[in-house]
């Protein structure tokens, strides 16, 4: 991935472009609806889902409230099992650690298992600068990498691409990276998957260093857990000589037994399957089986800042299932790129501004990238109250001088609302002018209407209507059928 998120426009601007893309909206609508229907069906199968969800949330809360204890325990267990633990305070440090580890092997190529953490720190770009080529091996990540693109969904990163686009990417780019696409490649998903298999097989069988993340890291045993579907994960985790795993410090679960909860919650919430095709677990190194050198890089990169916020802390419970993306009416229309981060959708809207801070325009706009409908909270398998955190972060953005136009508007609204007479006059004035209100507001109000239609202004305020009914007089609504602007 050479594309970066530098200079990303704020969410409303990016969303406007995305919602105008009919193909993108069609792809997203189909994909998100399909996954959420599947999810609902398999969640329905478990009559103890509420209990599992409560347990998942509680286990993660326990971990987060005692994270220092569990980090030390994990380090001890991994070391005892023959692994080496490294610590990285930020992206630059993590990238430097991984680069040095790869250099020490004497190789200049690595195969990669899909990992959000390594995307977050832009590891591939850092390795490229050091002359090391990183090959993404998840099919969707391969599509993104070959297309010089960025992922737009946590689970299916190339959700924004359709089959004919994928075929064109394979035909144009595969040869630059290794085994070329076969002649006469069609856009049949089966043929495309076969082309990816052939292209990547050479990499799996010859590359000696792999980089992964982990879905879970078990503190008491030092066990790493990776869930996947294609087998590319198994290839990377077992065939190379050296395995380097970059894992966010929030990925810990205290005990091996805790996995009984998460291995039920994650697949059902994520792909809508009872279980994903492959799950690999490993503890340090096993003589005669798999990599004989294992390095765990524990990554902070803003996580401790998030941990320090007592309301926002719950975002660190996230197990990256993407159920909140698939249910979100905003994500469904804008897609993932508009969020300007590797974590899109509702969870991205609360996680990214906490990991990166709210200084940039895009990060300050993310807590507003929501209708606050609460659907994301309903589907979250670890019960993260995303709306609560969104509102909390809006407060932080406003206090921090984030949205100037909004503060001005709020001050004006406050002046009107605090006095009943002013409000009545304003409402009557608005009712008279209702036919003149444009779909998109001019001036400072434009930002607001960039992502919303101006609501219809009622012909009569509630107070006026109430007063009239009490007096028995016919109202404007009865005299004349109300005409909408649209």
């Amino acid at each position, binding site marked *: 991935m050479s594309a970066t998120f530098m200079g990303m426009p704020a969410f409303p601007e990016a969303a406007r472009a995305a919602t105008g893309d009919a193909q993108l909206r069609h792809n997203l609508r189909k994909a998100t609806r399909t996954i959420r229907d599947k999810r609902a069906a398999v969640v329905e*199968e478990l009559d103890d889902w509420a*209990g599992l969800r409560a347990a998942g949330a509680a286990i993660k809360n326990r971990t987060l409230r005692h994270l220092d204890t569990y980090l030390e325990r994990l380090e001890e267990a991994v070391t005892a099992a023959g692994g080496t633990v490294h610590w990285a305070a930020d992206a630059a440090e993590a990238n430097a650690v991984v680069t040095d580890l790869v250099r020490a092997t004497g190789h200049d190529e690595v195969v990669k298992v899909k990992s959000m953490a390594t995307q977050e720190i832009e590891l591939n770009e850092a390795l490229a600068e050091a002359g090391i080529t990183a090959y993404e091996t998840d*099919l969707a990540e391969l599509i993104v990498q070959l297309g010089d693109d960025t992922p737009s969904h946590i689970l299916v990163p190339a959700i924004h691409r359709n089959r004919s686009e994928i075929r064109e990417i394979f035909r144009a780019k595969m040869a630059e990276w290794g085994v070329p696409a076969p002649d006469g490649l069609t856009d049949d998903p089966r043929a495309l998957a076969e082309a990816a298999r052939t292209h990547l097989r050479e990499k799996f069988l010859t590359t000696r260093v792999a980089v992964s993340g982990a879905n879970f890291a078990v503190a008491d045993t030092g066990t790493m857990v990776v869930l996947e579907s294609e087998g590319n994960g198994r290839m990377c985790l077992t065939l190379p000589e050296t395995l380097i795993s970059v894992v966010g410090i929030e990925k810990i679960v205290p005990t091996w037994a805790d996995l*009984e909860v998460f291995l039920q919650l994650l697949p059902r919430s994520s792909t809508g399957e009872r279980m994903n095709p*492959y799950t690999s677990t490993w503890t340090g190194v096993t003589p005669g089986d798999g990599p004989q050198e294992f390095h765990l890089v524990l990554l902070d990169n803003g996580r*401790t800042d998030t941990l*320090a916020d007592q309301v926002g802390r719950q975002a660190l419970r996230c197990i990256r299932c993407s159920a909140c993306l698939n249910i979100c009416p905003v994500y469904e229309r804008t897609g993932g790129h508009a969020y300007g981060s590797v974590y899109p959708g509702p969870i991205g809207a609360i996680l990214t501004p906490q990991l990166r801070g709210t200084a940039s325009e895009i990060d300050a706009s993310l807590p507003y990238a929501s209708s606050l409908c609460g659907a994301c909270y309903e589907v979250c398998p670890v019960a993260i109250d995303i709306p609560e955190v969104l509102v909390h972060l809006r407060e932080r953005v406003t206090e921090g001088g984030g949205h100037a136009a909004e503060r001005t508007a709020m001050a004006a609204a406050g002046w009107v609302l605090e006095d009943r007479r002013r409000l009545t006059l304003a409402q009557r004035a608005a009712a008279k002018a209702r036919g003149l209100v444009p779909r998109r507001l001019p001036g400072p109000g434009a930002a607001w209407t960039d992502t919303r239609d101006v609501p219809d202004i009622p012909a009569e305020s509630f107070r006026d209507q109430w007063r009239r009914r009490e007096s028995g007089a016919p109202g404007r609504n009865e005299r004349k059928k109300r005409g909408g602007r649209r």
Partner: protein
Amino acid sequence: MSASREHVLARVRAALADVPRDEKPEDVTVPDDYARSHDQGEPIGLLVDRLEDYKAVVHRVGAADLPAAVASAMAWRNTHRVVVPADLPADWTSQTATRTVAGDELDIDELDAVDGVITGCAVAIAETGTIVLDGGAGQGRRAVTLIPDYHLCVVRADQVVAGVPEAVARLDPRRPLTWISGPSATSDIELDRVEGVHGPRTLEVIIVE
């Protein structure tokens, strides 16, 4: 390196200033009223149903019929040479005409050249249709079940548990584990499910009762 360690740990501790000093991890209660299994049917029948849902081929046989079932599967797949772990029970392959080679010494390219692999397993989970390999008896190292395109797995009835919690309790996390739920699959292209990308494209299971 250790400077970063102390730095990160110090930041974690500072971030948790609101947590009372005498609070222990166990003080954060975890509700455990979820089910150990879900009463979704007789486990073996359920396992078959789930495996078939993943497009795996499933057979149920009595113990005496296992060698014949293995031979029949090998013939049906037209295999000539398959890998087996060195400690696979010899009678499993006693009736097949397919040549078996011990997988423990084969390198990656050699594994890539065989027609398939036959293994046992450690545990199977009925509710999720999952087979777990732990590198124990009759399973070999992880590469033997990964590189060949066809995997025939033998599951004994006493290895079948109903739900995920029972499986987690039976397994030893110190062993490298591979949980398999159907053949390799991807849904990355317009969410159309395609079976078989990198792992074995065909999973066949014989359940021995």
